[in-house]
């Protein structure tokens, strides 16, 4: 699993509540990513980070924010969860000679917003 831990593994929450998902890595990789997976869409990039406090938006970033205060942790926050954010969320780290050439994924977090 390339030393990636996502927590929680499952979460059920109510519309309008804040939610934070955590991704922790043990291998000191510079690049980290958050993707969401929905039926019929494959995986889509939400946000990514190329270093501590360096983040950028992906293609589906609306309604999400991220923070990276330490190399090993990358947090994804839904400030006010909506039903459209019900999804499986994957964290990934980028590894390779040029950093990010290969992505290795965590086990995912199933989030249900009721």
């Amino acid at each position, binding site marked *: 699993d390339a030393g990636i831990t996502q927590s929680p593994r499952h979460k059920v929450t109510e519309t309008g509540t804040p939610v934070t998902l955590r991704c922790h890595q043990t291998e000191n990789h510079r*690049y980290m*990513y958050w993707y969401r997976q929905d039926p019929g869409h494959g*995986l889509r*990039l939400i946000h990514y980070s190329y270093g501590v406090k360096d983040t950028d938006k992906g293609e589906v970033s609306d309604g999400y924010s991220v923070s990276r205060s330490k190399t090993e942790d990358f947090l994804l926050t839904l400030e006010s969860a909506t039903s459209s954010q019900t999804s499986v969320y994957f964290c*990934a780290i980028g590894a390779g000679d040029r950093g990010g050439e*290969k992505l290795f*994924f965590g086990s*995912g977090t199933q989030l249900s917003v009721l």
Partner: protein
Amino acid sequence: AQTVTQSQPEMSVQEAETVTLSCTYDTSESDYYLFWYKQPPSRQMILVIRQEAYKQQNATENRFSVNFQKAAKSFSLKISDSQLGDAAMYFCALRGSTLGRLYFGRGTQLTVWP
């Protein structure tokens, strides 16, 4: 814009036989990478094989090989001697110049019959 299309939502194969999964893509970049990921029922995303666009030789990993047709923008995955453990959802993905920013197809569900 970068897009990935998998035209086969479902495929099936008999154990020990060979199956080919199709993928076409579109990109305006000259330097890019192509990937196949496997997602079994455990939900884990597993990197199967990677192809650098600048390499003419098709990538091979044990029973998995690709047929990379750059001019046709085609990237198919061939699984030889299929095993029951190969049953999974397979995703084709494209990465351009932005490290780790993958664009995924919608996936092909592969069933392996004993």
